[in-house]
């Protein structure tokens, strides 16, 4: 029965994940940020070191934060001399909280996690990782809750529970962290709108990092050369440049180059309205958002580059302006053959 219930929950989560994600308001955040990719080292608080099973879960949450931030948010790592600290302690200034984070950017942070078995005003705290084998329902996943606290350390706040459909996969819920077997009880990655906020505040990790589907950003695509006379039979490299549109409301993302996407090259004959796809342009791996394709030109065409909105990113599609590459003869005629039809040029 338990297994069937688990399967049902799994199917529900899969269904939610399969639903096309709509753009939404990113997870709230406040305060100043860490420097981009700032490495922040933490230690276990002296006298409040977690037991081995808890230490393992809390360390795993550190790795979860680093791997799922998808941005240049702070990188957390253990160092016995770290200024920040994590504690497994009952020293929390409430009689109800199970996790408690204090940010002191740019220097450090502190995270307190309540010990297993603590009696709080709502009941007894049970961490799932405490149990060997299958943990009981009602327990809280220490790795998930610690990752939630790392979210606070990264400046994330709590989501607006009125928009629960938007924030289904968020780790930053306020009204009761989710216990087993509620959907997401053991989620170990930031949700899409959590990532969106981190990308807005810290910039995506690389120019090829997928932009969160919680966002809906316009893109800008240019193509060069824009117009030119090209000698017949000459090889020409067409270069497209893709970036987040400068008009986006998030300054850190405005103008951000986008590499590793799919940009295709199209052409049409003069006087035609129909575009034909020539092929995919090759992404240049230099983080400039450039895509190239080399063509040998024998006929004059109009050219354009097209970026179709990807289903797995919060980016809109874009089409470049049209470049007309006029093919010309590459020499000056020296004479015209007579008695030959058609006429031809000789150089």
């Amino acid at each position: 029965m338990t297994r069937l219930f688990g399967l049902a929950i799994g199917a529900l989560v899969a269904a939610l994940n399969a639903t096309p994600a709509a753009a939404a308001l990113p997870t709230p955040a406040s305060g100043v940020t860490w420097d981009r990719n700032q490495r922040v080292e933490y230690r276990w608080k002296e006298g409040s070191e977690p037991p081995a099973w808890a230490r393992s879960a809390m360390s795993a949450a550190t790795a979860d934060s680093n791997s799922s931030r998808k941005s240049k948010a702070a990188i957390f790592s253990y160092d016995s001399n770290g200024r920040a600290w994590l504690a497994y302690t009952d020293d929390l200034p409430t009689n109800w909280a199970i996790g408690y984070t204090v940010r002191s950017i740019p220097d450090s942070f502190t995270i307190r996690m309540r010990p297993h078995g603590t009696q709080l005003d709502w009941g007894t705290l049970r961490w799932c990782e405490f149990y060997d084998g299958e943990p009981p329902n009602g327990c809280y996943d220490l790795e998930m809750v610690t990752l939630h606290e790392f979210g606070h350390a990264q400046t994330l706040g709590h989501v607006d529970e009125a928009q629960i459909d938007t924030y289904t996969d968020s780790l930053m819920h306020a009204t009761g962290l989710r216990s087993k077997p509620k959907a997401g009880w053991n989620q170990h990655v930031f949700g899409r709108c959590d990532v969106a906020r981190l990308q807005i505040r810290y910039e995506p990790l690389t120019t090829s990092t997928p932009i969160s589907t919680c966002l809906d950003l316009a893109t800008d695509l240019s193509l060069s050369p824009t117009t030119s006379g090209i000698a017949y039979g000459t090889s020409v490299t067409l270069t497209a440049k893709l970036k987040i549109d400068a008009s986006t409301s998030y300054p850190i993302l405005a103008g951000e180059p986008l590499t590793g996407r799919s940009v295709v090259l199209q052409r049409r004959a003069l006087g035609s309205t129909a575009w034909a796809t020539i092929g995919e342009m090759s992404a240049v791996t230099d983080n400039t958002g450039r895509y190239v394709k080399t063509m040998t030109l024998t006929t004059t065409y109009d050219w354009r580059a097209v970026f179709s909105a990807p289903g797995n990113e919060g980016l809109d599609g874009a089409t470049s302006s049209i470049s007309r590459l006029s093919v010309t003869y590459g020499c000056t005629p020296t004479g015209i053959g007579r008695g030959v039809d058609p006429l031809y040029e000789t150089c």
Partner: protein
Amino acid sequence: MKLPTLARIPVVVLLMSACSLAPLAQPSSSPAAPIATTPTATAAATVTPTVEVTRMSLPAADPPLGLLDAGDDPVEGRLGSYCWEGTCADAAGIPPKSQLPTLAADGGDLEFSLSDGTTFVRWRATYAAGANDEQTTLGEGGEGFDPDARPSPAPELLSSAAFDEPPRDDWIVFVQVFFEGGDLSYAWHVIVR
């Protein structure tokens, strides 16, 4: 599905200047107004210890108290998960209704405010029969605040939020508010007669 109800337009305290919310969103240093923890003597015995422990043990940058008023004296709510001035606390649950601050209502509106006059930009009120039951929206208002977006029309700063009482019965009422520096959530045991 019950649609959100705005029983009354929340009081707009100030229109933000084009430059910053910060000076207005900060808590004032003025002392909190006298508060009746519970409206009834019977509820006081069970409510007071929980509320007092929470309130007394918070650090220097205490979040403001959340007050719910049915027309008599405002009742201080049980603080839940919050982020306030760089400090975040996370609740895993709330206690039974009998241990929550109790407010007696007799049909009308409820009004939420923060103890020190702290303003907020968005709020939402819900109710449920129990802590783990599905919540129904009583009202919501204001606009979300995005600290990272380019300057846009300033949101209104609200000093209170009014909404319909739940139907006649015994409920938990939740209020979540957002402001530039974070979010706060509170709960009450509300008895509607």
